[in-house]
């Protein structure tokens, strides 16, 4: 089963918003993986900051589909996720590799409306 297409509410010309799941499907201050348009996307409910983030689920270090199970936190003001395998960390806001020894990751726009989480894909 793939998630239903949200009546594609297009903000700009390029971003299509896809329904991911409901707010309560995601643990507080943690993440889970959603399957959208054939893509594995890690979604994080950073409730301590009242923020949501979405990024690719694949950790670029060993190409593992795992980042959604990573631990989130902050480095100075930067929100980040640490891969469970070797704790490589990535900025959730920019996707930058914070250890500087792996590639960066893709991040996606995300919005929450009436208890539903949407992800923007271009």
């Amino acid at each position: 089963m793939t998630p239903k297409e949200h009546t594609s509410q297009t903000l700009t010309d390029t971003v299509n918003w896809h329904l991911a799941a409901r707010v309560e499907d995601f643990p507080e201050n943690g993440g889970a993986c959603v399957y959208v348009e054939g893509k594995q996307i890690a979604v994080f409910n950073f409730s301590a900051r009242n923020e949501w983030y979405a990024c690719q689920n694949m950790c670029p270090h060993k190409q593992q589909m795992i980042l959604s199970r990573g631990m989130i936190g902050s480095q100075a003001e930067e929100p980040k996720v640490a891969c469970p395998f070797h704790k490589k960390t990535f900025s959730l806001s920019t996707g930058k590799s914070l250890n500087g020894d792996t590639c960066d990751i893709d991040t996606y726009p995300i919005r929450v409306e009436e208890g539903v989480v949407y992800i923007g894909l271009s």
Partner: protein
Amino acid sequence: MIDVLVIGNGMVGYKFCEKLVNKAPEGFKITVFGEEPSPAYDRVHLSEYFAHKSVEPLLMAPRQWYEENAIELITSEMVVSINREAKSITTHKGRTFNYDKLVLATGSTPFVPPIEGSNKSGVFVYRTVEDLDAMETYSKNAKTSAVLGGGLLGLEAAKAAVDMGLEAHVIEFAPRLMPRQLDEAGSDMLQATLESMGLHIHLSKSTASIDGDEAMTSMTFTDGAALEAEMLIISCGIRPRDELANESGLEKGERGGIKIDELTLTSDCDIYAIGEVASYKGMTYGLVAPGYDMATVAVEHLTGADTKGFTGADMSTKLKLIGVDVASFGDALDEGKQYKSIVFEDKNAGIYKRVNISKDGKKLMGGILVGDASNYNMLFQMMLNDMTLPPHPEDLVMDTSRQGAAAGNTVDMLPEGAQICSCENVTKGALVQAIEGDGVEQFAALKTCTKAGTGCGACSPMVNDILTATLKKMGKKVRKVLCEHFAYTRQELFDLVKLNNIHSFDQLINDYGKGHGCETCKPAVASILASAWNGLILKQDTIQDTNDRFLANIQKGGTYSVIPRIAGGEITPEKLIVIGEVAKKYDLYAKITGGQRIDLLGARIDQLPEIWEELINAGFESGHAYGKALRTVKSCVGSSWCRYGLHDSVSFAIRIEERYKGLRAPHKIKSAVSGCRRECAEALSKDFGIIATEKGWNLYVGGNGGANPQHAVLLAGDIDEETCIAYIDRFLMFYIKTAEPLNRTATWMNKLEGGLDYLKQVVVEDSLGMGKQLEAEMQLLVEAYACEWKEVVNNPALRARFKHFVNSPEADPSLKFDKQRAQKVPVGW
């Protein structure tokens, strides 16, 4: 507004823009021309493009960055001429742009030697993402490939060919690999290692022709030999793209490239040239670092700032080729035979090291490292800073343990000006200033504030050494605070948690921390909370390390392993059968562990609760193999069966395992009980081990297998079971309360002031008067025990968290397995 046009949007052209907007956000209008369709990307890591299949992760900056900084980026457009009189340039689309200042950063292009047939299809170069795309498409219908050129880049290309699933042959004209960096012995060692990885290497071969009809099928060498290959990657060096100089009359270097002076100015003082296209004193540089230096100088000159100028660059390199360390620095080859060399070779391990030292034995002049380049940084610094060599210079290449000590001293010996981080140009002086002057005490903070170690990261160990050495010199006792979020040691936090009755991470960080936690403090606090209250850890699942969050050990590929508790290693045939049945039903790989139990590997996250349910129904419970917790209490068969046995080691082991099961600690805890001095259970290698004596039991503590094996030492002798348990309660509780995060008991005891004597006083003599309290605290934890697996199995909300996708019941489609000896294993990574 000064109009600056940059021709070439490669690594160096980009760096120029970045530095210019940082230094002078206003006053310059920058326009950049790039012939490639994509904005500048990291060519150094070009091979990673194969993994990403997208250029995005490699971009130096996204297009948006150029917009935000008001830089006009024009891609897919080549500049074809410069009109110096009119101060304008023209592109291939016929558009003309005027400039006040012009920057040439056109890089270089691969050199294709004039070999007959090099225009056949199947022949490629390795420089741009388009090259890689073309190669990858072509490789789908090919099996064999060759690489022309056994230099740095050629070997990288060969690795790419292997990754594309091709048989790969490397053809080098010189009699050795990487002829500019390695001597013959170094090349031999590298060759042997590469061949063992399946690469074919042909030296001293010169290619006469590339054969085939329209597409190549083979190549012929001048010695008459031939090689079948459906693809060829040419990697024979580079040629600067200096064609714009020709018609416009800019002066060129003797061996090509656009001639620049120390200020990176060409023969026209409104035109700079930087990067691979620039020729300084007849030299062009095929590395990125000198290009960045030139970009810095150009920006400094352009903005009227002070500049040290560009005076040449060191060509020392360290890299990992297909997983093999290779480094070469200074005068590596000593072709003038002016020095003495010391060589170390270990054919077994594939290690070759050579250093060249001055005839008087005082200075290091250069060297080669193959197979192990761990001390490259130190050696390179010694050479750059003209440091006096240690009394036994052979230590530099030989004994790694002594090297550690030597390296420790050498950070002290380094002069202030020594460049530690070459990516960001940070000196030792700057690091020391940050530590002494600005009071930085943490490695991460030091990296952030000086930028050292944020580039390639190779200097990180040295930065850390300097931090430790400087703090020591300042007389600072390095207080091990947890991380940037908690300015407390683990012991202090443990006390705060207990005193203030704190049960959650959120409360602790609100009251005593700052920020939002991280992968260091969250699991440490999780462990403290578990050791203090032994509540259900899944109540705060997202502060747990992944193993604790999913109550199983994560394995390659993202599946988990399941280890039920088998106390003391004793198991009934009925239970054995259940384990076998479960393994069969879920297609799990089964293995006996080192701790006398059975590991079932390869369970998908969604299968975990089902597997646990079946095991629990058969009377099993969690073995906590995933936690920083009590693991196993091994036992020998003991007096029930063994003719030497003094006491029943199995029963005692089971009693102990039942008591401490689920106990969480700063690190994992292992134990064992042996029925006599023959010690079949290997109790002396455990965190606490018990051995039967004529009169009772001996209790040993602080043993460790693992990376730094250490024997346990006697804490108390000839004691009865009850006393033994009381002492273990006290010992473990004392350890749990006072150890640093992730310190095993051995490490903790090694650091404990007063050592074993002090420990005996606290535990056996009760010198602190805490004995009863420690026992009571342990009792509390024992009583609070509940099987975590069972909680999940019986709680639908918890159970729902065990799946790969929250919006689909499907399993992770990327999971892949191979077979090995009739069982499944994950595909390698």
